[in-house]
């Protein structure tokens, strides 16, 4: 089931949660709505679900206009941020809820319900816990119950609000993979909300980056990361180091520090650099003169993360260097180096 959002807007009192925006989600696609809190991503998700009504615009599922259709008739699966399990019901009854709630004519028989719930519980590997109450389960297990409950009504659209936000890192990784598998197996269209860029980039076919009630960019994870449309998208998608200064004699200068660059009309007075685009050297060269002091070193993971400070920075920089470079340079806290950027990024000033 494809989802078409056309010119949807929403205000809460005097604050605008969503400026009119449009979005096209293809059948079977998995789309992440990514943005900081207050960007309107959850409001958009709730409008798609029918839990919130838009002030203007329309929502179509396939060819069907569902703008005025009540949430219970939209047949969407919705997974809430804090699971919203029914605390007084067993795992089994939670999953069976959607089937039992059907009007008498459409309700499957008790034996049918048992089989379907049992099958789903096996699918989410919870069949042995079916008699437990939600309070007796771990966070990851509760999340799987919430998913099974949403899937029991066989929705063609699955909507998830910060599905893994409250879980610890390892469970999160496992559940992400598992959700991806379920998505491929069941073939539903999924939209999920997250503020975690890694989650959005790993899980989605396409990512919708939002801020302040607007869509900043819609693209595949690769395209998004390689070619961010603007400064917001760039800085939201990963660690960012900023260098601001004045153009003087072919240099962007800030105190004693400078980066050599030709002045162009559109170039603003700042450049942004990713941590892996910084090289540490013992001497400056003709491309840049950026003296820094090592503040902290963290050799955990595939790269070594080095925190750098200097008087000319407004916030500390972060460089990630290879273990090979780390062994060669042996940076210690307090050591002085020069940074040479391998590349940098510039964005036109934002229209406020």
């Amino acid at each position, binding site marked *: 089931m494809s989802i078409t959002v056309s010119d949807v807007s929403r205000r809460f009192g005097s604050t605008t949660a969503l400026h009119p925006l449009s979005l096209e989600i293809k059948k079977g696609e998995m789309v992440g709505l990514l943005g900081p809190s207050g960007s309107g991503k959850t409001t958009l998700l709730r409008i798609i679900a029918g839990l919130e009504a838009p002030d203007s615009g329309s929502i179509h599922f396939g060819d069907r206009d569902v703008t005025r259709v009540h949430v*219970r008739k939209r047949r969407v699966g919705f997974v*809430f941020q804090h699971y919203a399990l*029914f605390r*007084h019901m067993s795992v089994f009854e939670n999953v069976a809820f959607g089937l039992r709630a059907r009007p008498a004519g459409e309700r499957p028989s008790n034996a049918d319900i048992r089989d379907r719930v049992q099958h789903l519980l096996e699918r989410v590997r919870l069949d042995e816990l079916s008699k437990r109450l939600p309070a007796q389960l771990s966070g990851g297990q509760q999340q799987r119950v919430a998913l099974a409950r949403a899937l029991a*009504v066989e929705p063609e659209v699955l909507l998830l609000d910060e599905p893994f936000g409250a879980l610890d890192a390892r469970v999160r990784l496992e559940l992400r993979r598992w959700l991806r598998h379920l998505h491929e197996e069941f073939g539903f269209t999924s939209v999920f909300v997250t503020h975690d860029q890694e989650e959005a980039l790993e899980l989605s076919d396409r990512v919708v980056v939002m801020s302040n009630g607007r869509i900043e960019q819609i693209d595949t994870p690769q395209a998004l990361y390689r070619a961010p449309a603007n400064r917001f998208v760039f800085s939201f998608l990963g660690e960012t180091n900023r260098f601001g200064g004045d153009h003087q004699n072919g240099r962007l200068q800030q105190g004693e520090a400078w980066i050599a660059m030709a002045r162009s009309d559109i170039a603003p007075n700042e450049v942004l650099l990713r941590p892996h685009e910084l090289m540490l050297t013992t001497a400056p060269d003709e491309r840049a003169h950026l003296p820094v002091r090592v503040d902290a070193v963290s050799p955990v993971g595939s790269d070594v993360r080095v925190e750098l400070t200097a008087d000319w920075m407004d916030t500390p920089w972060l460089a990630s260097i290879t273990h090979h470079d780390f062994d060669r340079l042996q940076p210690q806290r307090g050591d002085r180096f020069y940074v040479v950027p391998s590349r940098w990024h510039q964005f036109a000033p934002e229209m406020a």
Partner: protein
Amino acid sequence: MSARTARVLPGFSLSLGVTLLFVSLILLLPMTSLIGQLSTLSWSQYWAAITDPRLIASYKVTLLAALAASLFNALFGLLMAWVLARYTFPGKRILDALMDLPFALPTAVAGITLATLYSRNGAMGSLLEPLGIEVAYTWLGIALAMAFTSVPFVVRTVQPVLEDLPGQADEAALTLGASNLYAFRRVILPHIWPAVVTGTGLSFARSLGEFGAVIFIAGNMPYRTEVVSLMMATRLEEYDYAGAAAIASLVMLVSLLLLLAINLWQGRFYRRLHGGRH
């Protein structure tokens, strides 16, 4: 507290000591003197004192009226709590404050006001009389007075539980296709049920002992509209302290058992809800 069982939270012995002192002064001392009064009676005298036919008639009136009042309060109090917890509307805070009025108002004032309103030529009574409904000086009036003085028990026990119920739970039920009624019955009601029962039980216990509001609207006709608390007052006026104490001991016992039963049942329910094995 000895060092052997030292606690991290300070002030245990002091606060428990003060609590016990006040429980003794305010609760136990009067109850002891009541039992002391009873000791002047033999068992057969006690039995006779609590099985007087006029008294038995008053038990029936009181129980019936208290039952009707608390059931009415269960419904109306639930509705009020629902409105206060779920919706925002202008004047909500005023309505919220009004809910406590029955507790703040002297019960005699409530009784006189209700009696005036519902007597045959009162504002409400004159409207109801053509319909053949008599309120003042019947058990209906007693129930009305009881309901008035005890409705805050239901509202104030249910309201916080409703506010505590995550709004997402009923949203979840709706996304799963449940009708409003089904969602209420299967998701909301089980959650607030203990609070409703507790509130109704408290309302019932309070109604059993209600005096001030009731006597003005009851008419106090022997065998018809006399309540138990009035019978106690009558005994006292006759200087029959032991007889009054006998009735009081019975009312106290019934209320105590009721409250104990509610507490036990509620404890079990919440343990289940919060993850204890059952």
